[in-house]
């Protein structure tokens, strides 16, 4: 009987050993999965999103006024030098098939040519003259670069004189963007980048009127979006998510120009189904 009881003690010890081993195994599995999760999270860095719906921050009124006064700079009108080019190419592809239908009306025109065959050369000459005259009458409208240069000059003049219309732009947290007014080329560029990364369809909305998303982003000097703050969310999550995705996809933006936003730069945007407006 003693022989049969002795192993029970040793089996207790063995079981305790296995209990410890199982606990260690579970701890190891949890630690490993935690490590892998953190590794994965670091690989796909996500910007922190803070929902501060219905919280009015000091200075927010000023920024809204400025946006109203400045006729809502539509970001779609600006083109950033990187991504928009790619988009333009994409857009040009579907336009090409539209060219053949334009040729259709040329065939009915032929009878007119038959009516006045001698006037063809005269008409062509007149058209050439018109084409030659156009650049003289509208020298700046054809060139985007010249338009941008004009804008930059305007910004410089506004900044020097100190009469910029963006005086209320220091809304929110951190350094504002009011010093440059709404015509800041950097802000226009980042708005354009975000606009190009924004995938949103009005078809998903039953009623697009009054739907706005007020967002502020904190941009680090290297252009990384450190934080996204939703000042006001749209009632439709699809739009909120699309905005968040667009901002995450746009990060990193272009590096901040020297002297702009010493530690970082807060910029606000209003996303509407019609496009992005700067806050």
């Amino acid at each position: 009987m003693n022989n049969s009881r002795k192993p029970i003690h040793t089996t207790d010890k063995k079981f305790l050993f296995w209990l410890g081993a199982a606990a260690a195994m579970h701890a190891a599995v949890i630690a490993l999965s935690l490590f892998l999760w953190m590794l994965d999270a670091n690989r796909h860095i996500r910007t922190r999103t803070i929902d501060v719906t219905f919280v009015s921050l000091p200075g927010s009124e000023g920024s809204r006024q400025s946006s109203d006064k400045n006729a809502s700079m539509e970001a779609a009108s600006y083109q950033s030098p990187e991504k928009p080019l790619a988009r333009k190419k994409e857009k040009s592809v579907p336009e090409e098939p539209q060219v053949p239908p334009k040729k259709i009306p040329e065939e009915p025109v032929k009878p007119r040519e038959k009516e006045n065959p001698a006037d063809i050369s005269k008409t062509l000459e007149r058209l050439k003259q018109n084409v030659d005259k156009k650049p003289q009458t509208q020298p700046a409208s054809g060139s985007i670069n010249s338009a941008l240069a004009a804008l930059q000059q305007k910004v410089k003049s506004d900044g020097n004189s100190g009469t910029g219309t963006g005086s209320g732009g220091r809304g929110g947290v951190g350094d504002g963007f009011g010093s440059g007014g709404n015509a800041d080329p950097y802000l226009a560029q980042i708005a354009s980048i975000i606009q190009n990364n924004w995938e949103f369809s009005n078809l998903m909305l039953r009623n697009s009127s009054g739907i706005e998303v007020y967002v502020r982003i904190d941009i680090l000097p290297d252009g990384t979006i450190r934080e996204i703050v939703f000042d006001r969310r749209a009632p439709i999550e699809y739009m909120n998510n699309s905005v968040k995705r667009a901002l995450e996809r746009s990060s990193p933006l272009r590096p901040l120009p020297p002297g702009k936003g010493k530690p970082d730069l807060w910029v606000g945007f209003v996303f509407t189904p019609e496009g992005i407006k700067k806050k």
Partner: protein
Amino acid sequence: MHDSKLGVFGLISDAGPVVLFVLAVLLLFSVVSWAIIAYKFNYVRKSRYESAAFLDYFFEVYNVEKIFTESENYRNGSLPRVFRAGYVEYRAMSDLSDVRQARARVARAIRRESNAEAKRLAALVPFLATVGNTAPFIGLFGTVWGIMSSFQNIGLTQSASLAAVAPGISEALIATAAGLAAAIPAVIGFNYFTHEIGTIQQDLDEFSSEFVSVCIKEQ
């Protein structure tokens, strides 16, 4: 920079106290289950291996003294242990004149040891069955509780959008997942050990009479 709503750990960190308690209980169940599985696996495997080796020797030699000496090498086997109990009883008998009584005493000793061995083999295994049966329900309880809290929050926020409903439900479902994670290995282990222990017990029943006849025949 990490989105706290992502990943299992993010969901656990947002879980309520009841769900956390349920998860802790399930973790404990899982740890104990795995400990039992590992311990029993070694125990049963050794027992089967040594019993098979002892039986080979037993039928090869058929000499009770030699068999007893050899059985000392199989300390973990169930059959050698039962045989030793019968042999010790046989040696303890001073009066071997009454063969019937001697057989009965040896048989009783072998049966006693056989029962003890069966108990030893089956020890802790019912816990696996308990975990296998209850862990999914405990997890389900955590899920139901979590969904209850989630619906309460939905009522408070007065928003029934997917964004408001989904996190609470996914957070609650972790409890069910944990329950299944604890239950599945326990059920597999329970079925395996039940089968193995049944086989050993069958051997014990089968060879108990053989041991008795071997001991008494030597006389």
